[in-house]
């Protein structure tokens, strides 16, 4: 036994799952990255940790929920039409627009009056805004019970992209058929027995009927086992369409953002402001407008992430929904080097993969700590984050 397998046996690592888990990690990370971009952009321009960013995310998810209700997918609706991608697009756009507006309003009313004050004062204001949105939101937004977006709005919910890496053992197909036939026979016997005994539920059967039911259960377990063995005879990557859409949209939005920042006039102004706030304003940059724009773009990205998380993952929304994703994304932003746009993406993906690998290795109960462990480890060696610069501020 070589060292690798010994190690694997000790940790009970399932290497057949590893490729799938890496894909899972990247899918997870892409959403972290999307939210992290908002943190990093605001930080780059204002040197302010926008603690209310997680709450913007939360409000975006609620906006998506309301649009889905407006489209007819309310919790009480019984007959639902076939959904299409147009619905999803409407929800996405609505979330992004509303989040952008909320982001701008927060900046205008809470952060702009504080701009000439010490940064720590703005930080406390940010915490105050964040608490305010959580608690005041709870008064007006539907949250008890927490509301999910109905899955019927996602037309791709049952579709899964399969990428075979190693073909499966086709000899199992025949065996499965045999097992299924046995199961069907046993199931028919139970049904017949229920008819003769005149009971509605299989849980009310007499002891003889229960024996039949037990046989049926064993057959069912056999079918499940056989099917799963068949699946495990090959290796393939499964990507649910919903999550694939999330990933692709996130990627597209990041590329658009990069284009805006690198190739357009407002983007150049944004970089100038981020480099030196005062000089930029002396050079004729309308600083206020650029800051507003930054908040709008960052919040819109959070809105996109929120809409996609809420729609494709079926999360239940409360007003505290944004806190943890917000913190994770913040960590991702710092990990990549806060203020640095590619850094946020790298940090987000890295965190997604790291969390997934921790779960994979069987230490899922420490999943939420790993982000911080990595962060501290990275910052000890690169104090400015992975892609950030770590200049000592001059006197």
């Amino acid at each position, binding site marked *: 036994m070589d060292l690798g397998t010994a190690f694997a046996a000790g940790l009970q690592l399932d290497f*057949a799952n590893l490729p799938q888990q890496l894909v899972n990690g990247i899918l*997870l990370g892409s959403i972290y990255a999307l939210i992290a971009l908002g943190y990093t952009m605001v930080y780059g321009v204002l040197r302010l940790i926008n603690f209310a960013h997680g709450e913007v995310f939360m409000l975006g998810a609620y906006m998506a929920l309301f649009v889905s209700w407006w489209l007819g997918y309310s919790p009480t609706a019984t007959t639902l039409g076939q959904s299409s991608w147009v619905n999803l697009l409407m929800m996405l756009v609505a979330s992004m627009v509303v989040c952008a507006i909320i982001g701008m309003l927060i900046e205008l009313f809470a952060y702009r009056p504080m701009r000439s004050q010490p940064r720590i004062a703005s930080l406390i204001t940010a915490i105050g805004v964040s608490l305010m949105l959580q608690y005041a939101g709870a008064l007006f937004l539907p949250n008890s*019970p927490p509301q999910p977006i109905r899955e019927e709005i996602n037309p791709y*919910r049952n579709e899964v992209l399969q990428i075979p890496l190693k073909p499966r053992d086709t000899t199992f197909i025949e065996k499965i058929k045999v097992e299924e036939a046995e199961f069907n026979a046993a199931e028919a016997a139970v049904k017949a027995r229920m008819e003769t005994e005149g009971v509605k539920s299989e849980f009310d059967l007499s002891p003889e009927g229960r024996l039949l039911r037990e046989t049926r259960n064993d057959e069912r377990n056999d079918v499940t086992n056989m099917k799963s063995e068949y*699946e*495990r005879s090959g290796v393939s990557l499964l990507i649910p369409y919903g*999550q694939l859409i999330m990933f692709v949209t996130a990627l597209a939005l990041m590329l658009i953002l990069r284009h805006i920042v690198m190739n357009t006039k407002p983007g150049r102004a944004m970089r100038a402001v981020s480099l030196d706030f005062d000089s930029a304003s002396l050079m004729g940059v309308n600083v206020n407008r650029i800051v507003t724009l930054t908040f709008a773009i960052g919040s819109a990205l959070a809105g996109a992430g929120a809409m996609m998380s809420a729609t494709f993952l*079926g999360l*239940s929304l409360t007003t505290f929904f944004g806190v943890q994703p917000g913190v994770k994304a913040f960590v991702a932003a710092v990990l990549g080097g806060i203020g640095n746009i590619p850094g946020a993406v790298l940090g987000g993906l890295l965190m997604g993969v790291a969390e997934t690998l921790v779960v994979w290795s069987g230490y899922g109960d420490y999943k939420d700590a790993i982000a911080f462990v990595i962060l501290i480890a990275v910052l000890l060696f690169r104090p400015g984050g992975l892609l950030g610069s770590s200049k000592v501020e001059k006197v």
Partner: protein
Amino acid sequence: MKRRSFLYIALGAVFGAGILAGCSGGGSSESGGGTGTTATGDSIKIGLVASLNGDQRPWGVDSERGVRLLVDQINEAGGVNGKKIELLVGDSNSDPQIGKSATEKLISDGAVVVLGEVASGITAQMAIACTEKGIPLVAIGATRDDISDKGPDIFRVCYRDSFQGPVMAKFAFEELGLKRVALMTDKKIPYSTGLSNSFRDYYAMLGGEIVDEQFYEGGASTQFNAQLTNLKGKNPDGVFLSGYFTEVGPIVRQASQVGLTNVKFMGGDGWDSKEIINSGGEAIVGGYFCNHYSDQEDRPEVKAFLDAFVAKYNERPGTTMGALAYDAAAVAVEAIKAVTGDVSSKSVAGALHNLENYKGVSGDITFKGQGGNPPKRALVVELQADGTQKPVKAYAPTDVK
């Protein structure tokens, strides 16, 4: 100069007074065994501590609604012995420390009996505060076993972890015939870890095999692909999800996406919500969980409760806590009714200890000779496509031992 010496004298006096007062005050550990409260005037005050803010808010709001419904019903019917019931509500902000402060405040405002909480951690703190003052506590949803050890007058209207877990284990093993079960536990919620533990122990005792346990943190996780992929690799026949419906829904929905199909999903009363079917989608239809009651039951208490609730709030209770809170308030009022003479904490606690066969929404409640833990039946229900819960099998307390 004169002014300064005056200052010194004044401060010296303050210090001296303080020392004298401080010595007499001193500190005491474990004051224990208070005298309780006696209701005066033309109303009887009962207190409710609920998480009206913070991440437990959905359950807190529901428990407040349930209690308020009952109190309003009683008062509309003329109150108890001609006295109105006055409900005092305290917010625990989902935090044991603040929950205890709220309890102390309710007691100092004159509550004869205190109701609440949903979370065991907060209830434990409330139990300490109530025991010190000699006030009876009726817990709503605290299923943790050791809550009742905190004092003599700690009651609850729900069943305990050590009952619910075994019921589901027995159901899974004997009725569903599942031989290999995996667990998924919310590490952040004591309710979930407690339920998983009791399920695991009983299921192993029955001879089943726990193939894996995966963890997540409620509120912190959005994607469960990683855990589900691991579970899939272990090839379970069924998965026991011990968390709240807020996470169970997304987990089951995502499970079908990663190809974890053909498995039975099971859980505890944390599943009970009208929203679980919306967040779990098609995949959760056919899931089984342990509940206190089912809206499909034809017991008159259930029908009356649901009708009254819908009439008052225009919707069904969001979680199972609506019914449990209603029952908690009902047993408290029942005990107050049973008191002859002064309504005091002591007499109400005595009446609670003598309560027998109260027909609650969540089943019959008997405290007599049970030390605050009523032997309650558990109902296993199956989720239907229209969101209703079909009762499948009822377990009496003696069925699992």
